[in-house]
Protein backbone atom coordinates (compact mmCIF):
# COMPACT_ATOMS: atom_id res chain seq x y z
CA UNK A 1 0.00 0.00 0.00
CA UNK A 2 1.24 3.48 -0.83
CA UNK A 3 1.66 5.86 2.04
CA UNK A 4 -1.17 8.32 2.48
CA UNK A 5 -0.13 11.75 3.77
CA UNK A 6 -2.81 13.09 6.10
CA UNK A 7 -3.03 16.83 6.64
CA UNK A 8 -5.48 18.57 8.96
CA UNK A 9 -5.79 22.35 8.96
CA UNK A 10 -7.86 24.28 11.46
CA UNK A 11 -8.43 27.98 11.85
CA UNK A 12 -10.82 30.80 12.49
CA UNK A 13 -13.54 31.29 9.91
CA UNK A 14 -12.08 33.77 7.43
CA UNK A 15 -8.46 32.65 7.83
CA UNK A 16 -8.75 30.86 4.51
CA UNK A 17 -8.16 27.33 5.74
CA UNK A 18 -10.64 25.78 3.29
CA UNK A 19 -9.27 27.71 0.31
CA UNK A 20 -5.71 26.51 0.79
CA UNK A 21 -6.87 22.95 1.46
CA UNK A 22 -8.68 23.03 -1.85
CA UNK A 23 -5.68 24.50 -3.71
CA UNK A 24 -3.41 21.89 -2.13
CA UNK A 25 -5.68 19.01 -3.15
CA UNK A 26 -6.13 20.35 -6.66
CA UNK A 27 -2.39 20.81 -7.09
CA UNK A 28 -1.84 17.19 -5.98
CA UNK A 29 -4.47 16.00 -8.44
CA UNK A 30 -2.81 17.97 -11.24
CA UNK A 31 0.49 16.30 -10.33
CA UNK A 32 -1.19 12.95 -11.05
CA UNK A 33 -1.55 11.95 -7.42
CA UNK A 34 -4.69 10.84 -5.68
CA UNK A 35 -6.07 13.53 -3.42
CA UNK A 36 -9.10 13.86 -1.22
CA UNK A 37 -10.29 17.04 0.43
CA UNK A 38 -13.26 17.39 2.73
CA UNK A 39 -14.26 20.44 4.76
CA UNK A 40 -15.74 20.05 8.20
CA UNK A 41 -18.97 21.84 7.48
CA UNK A 42 -22.00 22.62 9.54
CA UNK A 43 -24.60 25.34 9.65
CA UNK A 44 -23.07 28.57 8.43
CA UNK A 45 -21.52 30.60 11.17
CA UNK A 46 -19.29 33.60 11.45
CA UNK A 47 -16.04 33.27 13.24
CA UNK A 48 -16.17 29.67 14.43
CA UNK A 49 -13.33 27.18 13.99
CA UNK A 50 -13.18 25.57 10.58
CA UNK A 51 -11.31 22.31 9.88
CA UNK A 52 -10.11 20.95 6.53
CA UNK A 53 -8.93 17.40 5.91
CA UNK A 54 -6.62 16.68 2.98
CA UNK A 55 -5.09 13.33 2.03
CA UNK A 56 -2.54 12.82 -0.71
CA UNK A 57 -1.20 9.50 -1.97
CA UNK A 58 0.18 7.67 -4.99
CA UNK A 59 -2.30 4.89 -4.24
CA UNK A 60 -5.96 4.71 -3.28
CA UNK A 61 -7.32 6.80 -0.40
CA UNK A 62 -9.78 5.36 2.12
CA UNK A 63 -12.20 7.13 4.45
CA UNK A 64 -12.55 10.89 3.87
CA UNK A 65 -11.69 11.76 7.47
CA UNK A 66 -9.02 10.44 9.80
CA UNK A 67 -8.08 10.75 13.44
CA UNK A 68 -4.29 11.16 13.59
CA UNK A 69 -2.76 13.65 11.19
CA UNK A 70 0.78 13.45 9.79
CA UNK A 71 0.78 17.24 9.59
CA UNK A 72 -1.51 19.18 11.89
CA UNK A 73 -1.81 22.92 11.45
CA UNK A 74 -4.00 24.74 13.99
CA UNK A 75 -3.97 28.46 13.32
CA UNK A 76 -5.58 30.01 16.38
CA UNK A 77 -5.55 29.33 20.13
CA UNK A 78 -8.90 27.61 20.09
CA UNK A 79 -8.07 25.68 16.92
CA UNK A 80 -5.21 24.26 19.00
CA UNK A 81 -7.69 23.13 21.64
CA UNK A 82 -10.19 21.84 19.14
CA UNK A 83 -7.74 19.55 17.30
CA UNK A 84 -6.00 17.68 20.13
CA UNK A 85 -7.59 14.40 18.94
CA UNK A 86 -5.78 14.73 15.62
CA UNK A 87 -2.35 14.95 17.27
CA UNK A 88 -0.38 11.73 17.72
CA UNK A 89 3.19 10.57 18.33
CA UNK A 90 3.97 10.77 14.59
CA UNK A 91 2.43 14.19 14.02
CA UNK A 92 4.37 17.21 12.84
CA UNK A 93 2.65 20.17 14.47
CA UNK A 94 2.80 23.59 12.89
CA UNK A 95 1.05 26.44 14.65
CA UNK A 96 0.87 30.18 14.31
CA UNK A 97 2.26 31.97 17.33
CA UNK A 98 1.08 35.43 16.29
CA UNK A 99 -1.39 37.18 18.52
CA UNK A 100 -4.69 37.33 16.70
CA UNK A 101 -8.12 38.14 18.02
CA UNK A 102 -10.47 35.20 17.85
CA UNK A 103 -14.08 35.39 16.84
CA UNK A 104 -16.75 35.61 19.49
CA UNK A 105 -18.80 32.79 18.08
CA UNK A 106 -18.69 29.71 20.21
CA UNK A 107 -17.04 26.74 18.58
CA UNK A 108 -19.89 24.35 18.99
CA UNK A 109 -22.63 26.85 18.33
CA UNK A 110 -25.66 25.54 16.52
CA UNK A 111 -27.03 28.67 15.04
CA UNK A 112 -29.08 30.08 12.28
CA UNK A 113 -27.94 30.00 8.70
CA UNK A 114 -26.82 33.44 7.65
CA UNK A 115 -28.15 33.90 4.14
CA UNK A 116 -28.78 37.59 4.48
CA UNK A 117 -25.55 38.85 5.99
CA UNK A 118 -22.40 39.72 4.09
CA UNK A 119 -19.56 37.88 5.77
CA UNK A 120 -17.17 40.22 7.53
CA UNK A 121 -13.61 40.58 6.37
CA UNK A 122 -11.22 39.67 9.20
CA UNK A 123 -8.33 41.30 7.40
CA UNK A 124 -9.93 44.74 7.59
CA UNK A 125 -8.84 47.09 10.36
CA UNK A 126 -12.29 46.89 11.89
CA UNK A 127 -13.86 43.77 10.40
CA UNK A 128 -17.41 44.27 11.56
CA UNK A 129 -17.71 47.95 10.78
CA UNK A 130 -18.65 47.76 7.12
CA UNK A 131 -21.61 45.48 7.83
CA UNK A 132 -25.20 46.65 8.19
CA UNK A 133 -25.05 47.44 11.89
CA UNK A 134 -28.77 46.89 12.49
CA UNK A 135 -28.45 43.34 11.18
CA UNK A 136 -25.50 42.38 13.33
CA UNK A 137 -26.51 44.24 16.50
CA UNK A 138 -26.18 41.89 19.42
CA UNK A 139 -24.62 39.20 17.19
CA UNK A 140 -21.26 37.67 17.98
CA UNK A 141 -18.48 39.33 16.02
CA UNK A 142 -15.90 37.85 13.70
CA UNK A 143 -12.25 37.34 14.41
CA UNK A 144 -9.73 40.00 13.45
CA UNK A 145 -6.28 39.41 12.08
CA UNK A 146 -5.24 42.99 12.63
CA UNK A 147 -6.25 43.34 16.27
CA UNK A 148 -4.03 41.65 18.78
CA UNK A 149 -5.55 38.97 20.95
CA UNK A 150 -4.18 36.29 23.19
CA UNK A 151 -1.81 33.85 21.55
CA UNK A 152 -1.54 30.09 21.76
CA UNK A 153 -0.83 28.88 25.29
CA UNK A 154 2.14 26.48 24.95
CA UNK A 155 0.52 24.34 27.67
CA UNK A 156 -2.31 23.54 25.25
CA UNK A 157 -0.02 21.96 22.69
CA UNK A 158 -0.27 18.16 22.78
CA UNK A 159 2.56 15.63 22.75
CA UNK A 160 3.69 15.18 19.16
CA UNK A 161 6.76 14.24 17.15
CA UNK A 162 7.73 17.78 16.32
CA UNK A 163 6.39 21.27 17.05
CA UNK A 164 7.15 24.21 14.79
CA UNK A 165 5.90 27.69 15.59
CA UNK A 166 5.72 30.26 12.81
CA UNK A 167 4.50 33.85 13.12
CA UNK A 168 2.65 33.70 9.79
CA UNK A 169 -0.02 36.23 10.67
CA UNK A 170 2.53 38.77 11.87
CA UNK A 171 4.60 38.31 8.74
CA UNK A 172 1.54 38.70 6.56
CA UNK A 173 0.40 41.78 8.45
CA UNK A 174 3.77 43.50 8.72
CA UNK A 175 5.62 42.46 5.56
CA UNK A 176 3.01 41.50 2.98
CA UNK A 177 -0.75 41.80 3.43
CA UNK A 178 -3.07 40.14 5.97
CA UNK A 179 -4.88 38.52 3.08
CA UNK A 180 -1.99 36.31 2.02
CA UNK A 181 -1.65 34.81 5.49
CA UNK A 182 -3.07 31.50 4.29
CA UNK A 183 -0.68 31.35 1.33
CA UNK A 184 2.25 31.55 3.78
CA UNK A 185 0.72 28.53 5.51
CA UNK A 186 0.37 26.78 2.17
CA UNK A 187 4.09 27.28 1.54
CA UNK A 188 4.80 25.88 5.00
CA UNK A 189 2.74 22.77 4.26
CA UNK A 190 4.62 22.14 1.02
CA UNK A 191 7.94 22.33 2.87
CA UNK A 192 6.73 20.10 5.69
CA UNK A 193 5.11 17.38 3.55
CA UNK A 194 7.49 17.35 0.58
CA UNK A 195 4.84 15.58 -1.50
CA UNK A 196 4.54 18.32 -4.08
CA UNK A 197 6.94 20.73 -5.76
CA UNK A 198 6.40 24.40 -4.96
CA UNK A 199 5.75 25.06 -8.66
CA UNK A 200 2.66 22.85 -8.59
CA UNK A 201 1.11 25.24 -6.10
CA UNK A 202 2.09 28.23 -8.23
CA UNK A 203 0.30 26.59 -11.15
CA UNK A 204 -2.75 25.89 -9.00
CA UNK A 205 -2.77 29.52 -7.83
CA UNK A 206 -2.58 30.65 -11.46
CA UNK A 207 -5.61 28.49 -12.27
CA UNK A 208 -7.56 29.67 -9.26
CA UNK A 209 -6.64 33.36 -9.30
CA UNK A 210 -5.53 33.76 -12.92
CA UNK A 211 -8.02 36.49 -13.76
CA UNK A 212 -7.21 38.48 -10.66
CA UNK A 213 -3.48 38.08 -11.36
CA UNK A 214 -3.91 39.39 -14.89
CA UNK A 215 -5.89 42.37 -13.65
CA UNK A 216 -3.34 43.09 -10.94
CA UNK A 217 0.10 41.50 -11.45
CA UNK A 218 1.18 42.78 -8.02
CA UNK A 219 -1.22 40.24 -6.54
CA UNK A 220 0.70 37.42 -8.18
CA UNK A 221 4.01 38.69 -6.79
CA UNK A 222 2.54 39.01 -3.33
CA UNK A 223 1.03 35.52 -3.37
CA UNK A 224 4.21 33.91 -4.70
CA UNK A 225 6.31 35.83 -2.19
CA UNK A 226 4.03 34.64 0.61
CA UNK A 227 4.26 31.08 -0.66
CA UNK A 228 8.06 31.17 -0.76
CA UNK A 229 8.25 32.88 2.62
CA UNK A 230 6.17 30.10 4.21
CA UNK A 231 8.27 27.48 2.50
CA UNK A 232 11.51 28.99 3.77
CA UNK A 233 10.19 29.37 7.32
CA UNK A 234 9.75 25.61 7.56
CA UNK A 235 12.93 24.71 5.65
CA UNK A 236 14.81 26.91 8.07
CA UNK A 237 13.17 25.30 11.09
CA UNK A 238 13.45 21.64 10.10
Amino acid at each position, binding site marked *: *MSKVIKIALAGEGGQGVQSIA*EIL*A*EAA*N*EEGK*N*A*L*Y*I*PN*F*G*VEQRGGVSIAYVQISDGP*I*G*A*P*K*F*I*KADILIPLSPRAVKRTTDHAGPDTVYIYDNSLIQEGEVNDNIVGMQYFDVTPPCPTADHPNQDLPQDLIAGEPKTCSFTTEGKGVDPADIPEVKRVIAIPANDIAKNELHPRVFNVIILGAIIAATKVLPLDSIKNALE*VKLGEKFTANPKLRDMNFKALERGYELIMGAM
Partner: protein
Amino acid sequence: MAEVSLKGEQRVFMTGNEVIAWAAVAAKAEIMYGYPITPQNEIMHYWTRLAPKYGKKFLQTEDEISAGFTTLGGVFTGTKAFTATSGPGNVLMQESAGMAEMMRLPVVYIIQQRGGPSTATVIYGQQETTLTCFGGNGEGYRIVYSPATHQDLFDYTIKAFNMAWTYRFPTFVLGDGYQAKMREPLTIYDPEEKGIKLVKPEPIVADLGQPQRKTKHLRNCLNTEDELYEILKGHQADYDALSSKIVEWDAQDCEDADLVIVSHGVVSRAALGAYKKLRAEGKKIGYFRPITVRPFPQEQLKQATKGAKRLFVAESAYGQLLKIVQNNLYGSTLEIVPMLRPGVGITSEEIYDEISKL
Protein backbone atom coordinates in the same frame (compact mmCIF):
# COMPACT_ATOMS: atom_id res chain seq x y z
CA MET B 1 -7.30 22.88 -15.92
CA ALA B 2 -9.03 21.89 -19.12
CA GLU B 3 -12.70 22.56 -19.54
CA VAL B 4 -14.78 19.63 -18.36
CA SER B 5 -16.64 17.77 -21.07
CA LEU B 6 -18.12 14.36 -21.65
CA LYS B 7 -16.21 13.77 -24.89
CA GLY B 8 -13.85 10.85 -24.48
CA GLU B 9 -12.72 9.92 -21.02
CA GLN B 10 -11.68 12.75 -18.77
CA ARG B 11 -10.15 12.65 -15.34
CA VAL B 12 -11.71 15.35 -13.19
CA PHE B 13 -11.41 16.49 -9.61
CA MET B 14 -14.71 17.67 -8.14
CA THR B 15 -17.25 17.42 -5.34
CA GLY B 16 -19.78 14.59 -5.27
CA ASN B 17 -22.66 16.97 -5.90
CA GLU B 18 -20.94 18.17 -9.06
CA VAL B 19 -20.38 14.55 -10.09
CA ILE B 20 -24.12 13.84 -9.80
CA ALA B 21 -24.99 16.78 -12.04
CA TRP B 22 -22.51 15.60 -14.69
CA ALA B 23 -23.75 12.02 -14.40
CA ALA B 24 -27.33 13.14 -14.94
CA VAL B 25 -26.22 14.99 -18.09
CA ALA B 26 -24.28 11.91 -19.22
CA ALA B 27 -27.38 9.75 -18.63
CA LYS B 28 -29.35 12.15 -20.86
CA ALA B 29 -31.67 13.21 -18.06
CA GLU B 30 -33.80 16.07 -19.33
CA ILE B 31 -35.16 17.81 -16.26
CA MET B 32 -34.49 18.12 -12.56
CA TYR B 33 -37.17 19.13 -10.09
CA GLY B 34 -35.92 20.14 -6.70
CA TYR B 35 -36.13 22.03 -3.47
CA PRO B 36 -32.96 23.16 -1.68
CA ILE B 37 -31.62 21.35 1.37
CA THR B 38 -28.06 20.92 2.61
CA PRO B 39 -25.97 18.93 1.76
CA GLN B 40 -27.39 18.38 -1.74
CA ASN B 41 -27.90 22.03 -2.80
CA GLU B 42 -24.98 22.06 -5.21
CA ILE B 43 -26.56 19.32 -7.32
CA MET B 44 -29.18 21.90 -8.22
CA HIS B 45 -26.59 24.64 -8.59
CA TYR B 46 -24.39 22.64 -10.96
CA TRP B 47 -27.37 21.26 -12.88
CA THR B 48 -28.72 24.76 -13.50
CA ARG B 49 -25.26 25.87 -14.57
CA LEU B 50 -25.00 23.02 -17.08
CA ALA B 51 -28.63 23.31 -18.19
CA PRO B 52 -28.30 26.10 -20.80
CA LYS B 53 -25.29 24.46 -22.43
CA TYR B 54 -26.88 21.03 -22.69
CA GLY B 55 -30.51 22.08 -23.27
CA LYS B 56 -31.74 20.87 -19.90
CA LYS B 57 -34.55 22.13 -17.73
CA PHE B 58 -34.99 22.81 -14.05
CA LEU B 59 -37.96 23.58 -11.87
CA GLN B 60 -37.67 24.68 -8.28
CA THR B 61 -40.83 23.72 -6.43
CA GLU B 62 -42.30 25.01 -3.18
CA ASP B 63 -41.24 22.01 -1.11
CA GLU B 64 -40.05 18.40 -1.33
CA ILE B 65 -43.55 16.91 -1.53
CA SER B 66 -44.03 18.94 -4.67
CA ALA B 67 -40.53 18.19 -5.99
CA GLY B 68 -41.25 14.47 -5.71
CA PHE B 69 -44.62 14.67 -7.43
CA THR B 70 -43.50 17.03 -10.21
CA THR B 71 -40.74 14.51 -10.95
CA LEU B 72 -43.44 11.86 -11.27
CA GLY B 73 -45.36 14.20 -13.57
CA GLY B 74 -42.28 14.61 -15.76
CA VAL B 75 -41.89 10.86 -15.97
CA PHE B 76 -45.58 10.44 -16.97
CA THR B 77 -44.84 12.33 -20.18
CA GLY B 78 -41.84 10.18 -21.03
CA THR B 79 -39.25 12.65 -19.81
CA LYS B 80 -36.13 11.43 -18.04
CA ALA B 81 -36.57 13.29 -14.77
CA PHE B 82 -34.91 13.22 -11.39
CA THR B 83 -34.80 14.98 -8.07
CA ALA B 84 -32.38 15.17 -5.15
CA THR B 85 -32.85 15.67 -1.45
CA SER B 86 -31.72 14.79 2.05
CA GLY B 87 -32.97 14.13 5.58
CA PRO B 88 -36.36 15.71 6.28
CA GLY B 89 -36.73 16.27 2.53
CA ASN B 90 -36.30 12.55 1.98
CA VAL B 91 -39.13 11.98 4.47
CA LEU B 92 -41.43 14.28 2.47
CA MET B 93 -40.51 12.59 -0.80
CA GLN B 94 -41.65 9.19 0.45
CA GLU B 95 -45.21 10.07 -0.49
CA SER B 96 -44.23 10.37 -4.15
CA ALA B 97 -41.95 7.34 -3.96
CA GLY B 98 -44.89 5.28 -2.71
CA MET B 99 -46.97 6.42 -5.68
CA ALA B 100 -44.09 5.51 -7.99
CA GLU B 101 -44.05 2.01 -6.49
CA MET B 102 -47.79 1.65 -6.97
CA MET B 103 -47.89 3.01 -10.53
CA ARG B 104 -44.48 1.60 -11.47
CA LEU B 105 -42.94 4.93 -12.40
CA PRO B 106 -39.27 5.17 -13.43
CA VAL B 107 -38.31 8.00 -11.15
CA VAL B 108 -34.74 8.62 -9.96
CA TYR B 109 -34.01 10.09 -6.52
CA ILE B 110 -30.56 11.18 -5.40
CA ILE B 111 -30.26 11.16 -1.61
CA GLN B 112 -27.33 12.83 0.18
CA GLN B 113 -27.94 11.66 3.72
CA ARG B 114 -27.51 14.05 6.65
CA GLY B 115 -27.85 13.43 10.36
CA GLY B 116 -31.24 12.53 11.79
CA PRO B 117 -33.87 12.37 13.13
CA SER B 118 -35.56 15.55 11.96
CA THR B 119 -33.34 18.52 11.11
CA ALA B 120 -30.43 17.14 13.19
CA THR B 121 -27.21 17.99 11.30
CA VAL B 122 -26.63 19.15 7.76
CA ILE B 123 -23.43 17.13 7.70
CA TYR B 124 -23.54 13.38 7.36
CA GLY B 125 -25.21 10.15 8.35
CA GLN B 126 -26.40 6.75 7.14
CA GLN B 127 -29.67 7.05 8.98
CA GLU B 128 -31.80 7.22 5.85
CA THR B 129 -31.02 3.64 4.88
CA THR B 130 -34.27 2.19 6.23
CA LEU B 131 -36.26 5.17 4.96
CA THR B 132 -34.81 4.98 1.47
CA CYS B 133 -35.22 1.19 1.22
CA PHE B 134 -38.59 0.81 2.93
CA GLY B 135 -40.15 4.27 3.38
CA GLY B 136 -43.77 4.77 2.44
CA ASN B 137 -46.87 2.76 3.27
CA GLY B 138 -45.91 -0.20 1.14
CA GLU B 139 -43.44 -3.00 0.61
CA GLY B 140 -40.33 -1.10 -0.46
CA TYR B 141 -40.39 -1.91 -4.16
CA ARG B 142 -37.31 0.15 -4.86
CA ILE B 143 -33.82 -0.21 -6.22
CA VAL B 144 -31.26 1.43 -3.93
CA TYR B 145 -27.58 1.85 -4.82
CA SER B 146 -25.11 2.79 -2.09
CA PRO B 147 -22.03 4.37 -3.70
CA ALA B 148 -18.68 4.71 -1.91
CA THR B 149 -16.50 6.71 -4.29
CA HIS B 150 -16.99 9.52 -6.73
CA GLN B 151 -16.52 7.02 -9.54
CA ASP B 152 -19.42 5.05 -8.05
CA LEU B 153 -21.52 8.22 -7.87
CA PHE B 154 -21.01 8.79 -11.58
CA ASP B 155 -21.41 5.17 -12.69
CA TYR B 156 -24.42 4.34 -10.52
CA THR B 157 -26.29 7.55 -11.24
CA ILE B 158 -26.15 6.64 -14.93
CA LYS B 159 -27.16 3.10 -14.05
CA ALA B 160 -30.03 4.30 -11.85
CA PHE B 161 -31.74 5.90 -14.85
CA ASN B 162 -31.29 2.73 -16.88
CA MET B 163 -32.63 0.51 -14.11
CA ALA B 164 -35.60 2.78 -13.45
CA TRP B 165 -36.62 2.85 -17.13
CA THR B 166 -36.00 -0.89 -17.56
CA TYR B 167 -37.77 -2.24 -14.48
CA ARG B 168 -40.14 0.65 -13.72
CA PHE B 169 -39.46 0.82 -10.04
CA PRO B 170 -38.33 4.00 -8.27
CA THR B 171 -34.53 3.99 -8.11
CA PHE B 172 -32.37 5.72 -5.53
CA VAL B 173 -28.71 6.66 -5.32
CA LEU B 174 -28.06 6.71 -1.58
CA GLY B 175 -25.09 9.01 -1.06
CA ASP B 176 -24.28 11.14 1.98
CA GLY B 177 -23.01 14.54 3.02
CA TYR B 178 -19.38 13.46 3.00
CA GLN B 179 -19.65 12.22 -0.55
CA ALA B 180 -21.60 15.34 -1.47
CA LYS B 181 -18.96 17.77 -0.22
CA MET B 182 -15.64 16.01 -0.60
CA ARG B 183 -13.44 16.34 -3.66
CA GLU B 184 -11.59 13.47 -5.25
CA PRO B 185 -10.63 12.40 -8.75
CA LEU B 186 -12.77 10.28 -11.05
CA THR B 187 -13.13 9.62 -14.75
CA ILE B 188 -16.21 10.96 -16.46
CA TYR B 189 -17.32 9.77 -19.88
CA ASP B 190 -20.13 9.58 -22.37
CA PRO B 191 -21.70 6.19 -21.58
CA GLU B 192 -22.77 5.60 -25.19
CA GLU B 193 -19.18 6.07 -26.40
CA LYS B 194 -18.24 3.27 -24.00
CA GLY B 195 -20.96 0.99 -25.35
CA ILE B 196 -23.30 1.48 -22.39
CA LYS B 197 -26.79 1.61 -23.87
CA LEU B 198 -29.00 4.31 -22.41
CA VAL B 199 -32.57 3.10 -22.03
CA LYS B 200 -34.89 5.43 -23.95
CA PRO B 201 -37.74 6.95 -21.99
CA GLU B 202 -41.27 6.64 -23.36
CA PRO B 203 -44.56 8.27 -22.47
CA ILE B 204 -46.27 6.38 -19.70
CA VAL B 205 -49.80 7.77 -19.68
CA ALA B 206 -50.20 8.65 -23.34
CA ASP B 207 -48.09 9.87 -26.22
CA LEU B 208 -49.36 13.39 -26.64
CA GLY B 209 -47.71 13.61 -30.07
CA GLN B 210 -49.95 10.86 -31.47
CA PRO B 211 -53.43 11.97 -32.63
CA GLN B 212 -54.77 8.42 -32.31
CA ARG B 213 -53.12 7.97 -28.97
CA LYS B 214 -54.28 5.40 -26.51
CA THR B 215 -54.26 6.54 -22.95
CA LYS B 216 -53.47 4.35 -20.02
CA HIS B 217 -55.37 4.58 -16.79
CA LEU B 218 -52.80 4.33 -14.03
CA ARG B 219 -54.52 3.64 -10.77
CA ASN B 220 -53.33 4.68 -7.38
CA CYS B 221 -56.64 4.23 -5.63
CA LEU B 222 -58.47 0.92 -5.74
CA ASN B 223 -61.96 -0.17 -4.80
CA THR B 224 -61.45 -3.62 -3.36
CA GLU B 225 -58.95 -5.56 -1.35
CA ASP B 226 -58.78 -8.19 -4.10
CA GLU B 227 -57.86 -5.66 -6.77
CA LEU B 228 -55.00 -4.38 -4.65
CA TYR B 229 -53.83 -7.88 -3.82
CA GLU B 230 -53.73 -8.86 -7.50
CA ILE B 231 -51.64 -5.80 -8.37
CA LEU B 232 -49.25 -6.28 -5.49
CA LYS B 233 -48.75 -9.94 -6.33
CA GLY B 234 -47.67 -8.79 -9.77
CA HIS B 235 -45.31 -6.15 -8.35
CA GLN B 236 -43.87 -8.64 -5.90
CA ALA B 237 -43.26 -11.22 -8.63
CA ASP B 238 -41.56 -8.60 -10.82
CA TYR B 239 -39.45 -7.41 -7.90
CA ASP B 240 -38.43 -10.95 -6.94
CA ALA B 241 -37.48 -11.66 -10.55
CA LEU B 242 -35.27 -8.61 -10.90
CA SER B 243 -33.54 -9.05 -7.55
CA SER B 244 -31.15 -11.82 -8.52
CA LYS B 245 -30.39 -10.03 -11.80
CA ILE B 246 -29.46 -6.65 -10.42
CA VAL B 247 -27.89 -7.21 -6.99
CA GLU B 248 -24.33 -5.94 -6.76
CA TRP B 249 -21.73 -6.43 -4.08
CA ASP B 250 -18.00 -6.42 -3.44
CA ALA B 251 -16.45 -9.30 -1.49
CA GLN B 252 -12.74 -9.58 -0.79
CA ASP B 253 -10.84 -12.37 0.96
CA CYS B 254 -13.98 -13.83 2.53
CA GLU B 255 -13.18 -17.46 1.63
CA ASP B 256 -10.81 -18.11 4.52
CA ALA B 257 -11.90 -15.25 6.78
CA ASP B 258 -12.59 -15.73 10.48
CA LEU B 259 -14.21 -12.32 10.63
CA VAL B 260 -16.00 -10.48 7.82
CA ILE B 261 -16.51 -6.71 7.96
CA VAL B 262 -19.86 -5.64 6.49
CA SER B 263 -20.51 -1.99 5.70
CA HIS B 264 -22.03 0.10 2.94
CA GLY B 265 -21.52 3.47 1.31
CA VAL B 266 -18.72 5.76 2.43
CA VAL B 267 -18.10 3.65 5.58
CA SER B 268 -16.96 0.79 3.35
CA ARG B 269 -13.94 2.95 2.41
CA ALA B 270 -12.92 2.90 6.07
CA ALA B 271 -13.69 -0.83 6.24
CA LEU B 272 -11.54 -1.48 3.19
CA GLY B 273 -8.59 0.37 4.75
CA ALA B 274 -8.95 -1.49 8.06
CA TYR B 275 -9.35 -4.87 6.33
CA LYS B 276 -6.19 -4.33 4.26
CA LYS B 277 -4.15 -3.32 7.29
CA LEU B 278 -5.36 -6.30 9.32
CA ARG B 279 -4.71 -8.69 6.41
CA ALA B 280 -1.20 -7.29 6.10
CA GLU B 281 -0.71 -8.27 9.75
CA GLY B 282 -1.71 -11.82 8.83
CA LYS B 283 -5.18 -11.70 10.38
CA LYS B 284 -7.91 -13.58 8.55
CA ILE B 285 -10.27 -10.71 7.86
CA GLY B 286 -12.72 -10.47 4.98
CA TYR B 287 -14.54 -7.50 3.49
CA PHE B 288 -18.12 -7.44 2.24
CA ARG B 289 -19.97 -4.46 0.85
CA PRO B 290 -23.51 -4.55 -0.52
CA ILE B 291 -23.62 -2.08 -3.42
CA THR B 292 -27.37 -2.57 -3.82
CA VAL B 293 -28.79 -2.29 -0.31
CA ARG B 294 -32.24 -2.97 -1.77
CA PRO B 295 -32.56 -5.60 -3.20
CA PHE B 296 -29.92 -7.00 -0.88
CA PRO B 297 -27.26 -9.50 -2.03
CA GLN B 298 -28.51 -12.18 0.36
CA GLU B 299 -27.02 -15.28 -1.27
CA GLN B 300 -23.69 -13.54 -1.75
CA LEU B 301 -23.47 -12.50 1.91
CA LYS B 302 -24.41 -16.03 3.02
CA GLN B 303 -21.69 -17.41 0.75
CA ALA B 304 -19.11 -14.85 1.96
CA THR B 305 -19.75 -15.60 5.62
CA LYS B 306 -20.04 -19.40 5.32
CA GLY B 307 -16.73 -20.16 6.99
CA ALA B 308 -16.58 -17.11 9.26
CA LYS B 309 -16.95 -17.13 13.01
CA ARG B 310 -17.83 -13.49 13.38
CA LEU B 311 -19.41 -10.68 11.48
CA PHE B 312 -18.44 -7.08 12.13
CA VAL B 313 -21.09 -4.57 11.05
CA ALA B 314 -20.02 -0.91 10.90
CA GLU B 315 -22.43 1.89 10.02
CA SER B 316 -23.17 5.55 10.76
CA ALA B 317 -26.63 4.63 12.04
CA TYR B 318 -27.91 2.74 15.04
CA GLY B 319 -28.54 -0.62 13.45
CA GLN B 320 -30.23 0.08 10.12
CA LEU B 321 -27.80 -1.96 8.01
CA LEU B 322 -27.52 -4.35 10.95
CA LYS B 323 -31.25 -5.14 10.77
CA ILE B 324 -31.05 -5.76 7.03
CA VAL B 325 -28.05 -8.05 7.55
CA GLN B 326 -29.73 -9.97 10.39
CA ASN B 327 -32.87 -10.37 8.32
CA ASN B 328 -30.91 -11.69 5.36
CA LEU B 329 -28.87 -14.12 7.47
CA TYR B 330 -31.85 -15.51 9.36
CA GLY B 331 -31.01 -18.91 10.82
CA SER B 332 -27.27 -18.27 10.97
CA THR B 333 -25.56 -18.59 14.34
CA LEU B 334 -22.73 -16.24 13.45
CA GLU B 335 -21.76 -13.87 16.22
CA ILE B 336 -22.35 -10.27 15.13
CA VAL B 337 -20.18 -7.47 16.53
CA PRO B 338 -21.81 -4.11 15.81
CA MET B 339 -20.06 -0.75 15.52
CA LEU B 340 -22.93 1.72 15.43
CA ARG B 341 -22.26 5.46 15.23
CA PRO B 342 -25.45 7.26 14.24
CA GLY B 343 -24.76 10.45 12.30
CA VAL B 344 -21.00 10.27 12.90
CA GLY B 345 -18.23 9.44 10.44
CA ILE B 346 -16.20 6.26 10.87
CA THR B 347 -12.48 6.16 10.08
CA SER B 348 -10.25 3.22 9.13
CA GLU B 349 -8.36 3.70 12.38
CA GLU B 350 -11.52 3.27 14.45
CA ILE B 351 -12.57 0.04 12.70
CA TYR B 352 -9.01 -1.24 12.97
CA ASP B 353 -8.91 -0.49 16.70
CA GLU B 354 -12.31 -2.08 17.39
CA ILE B 355 -11.39 -5.29 15.57
CA SER B 356 -7.92 -5.43 17.13
CA LYS B 357 -9.55 -5.30 20.57
CA LEU B 358 -11.65 -8.43 19.88
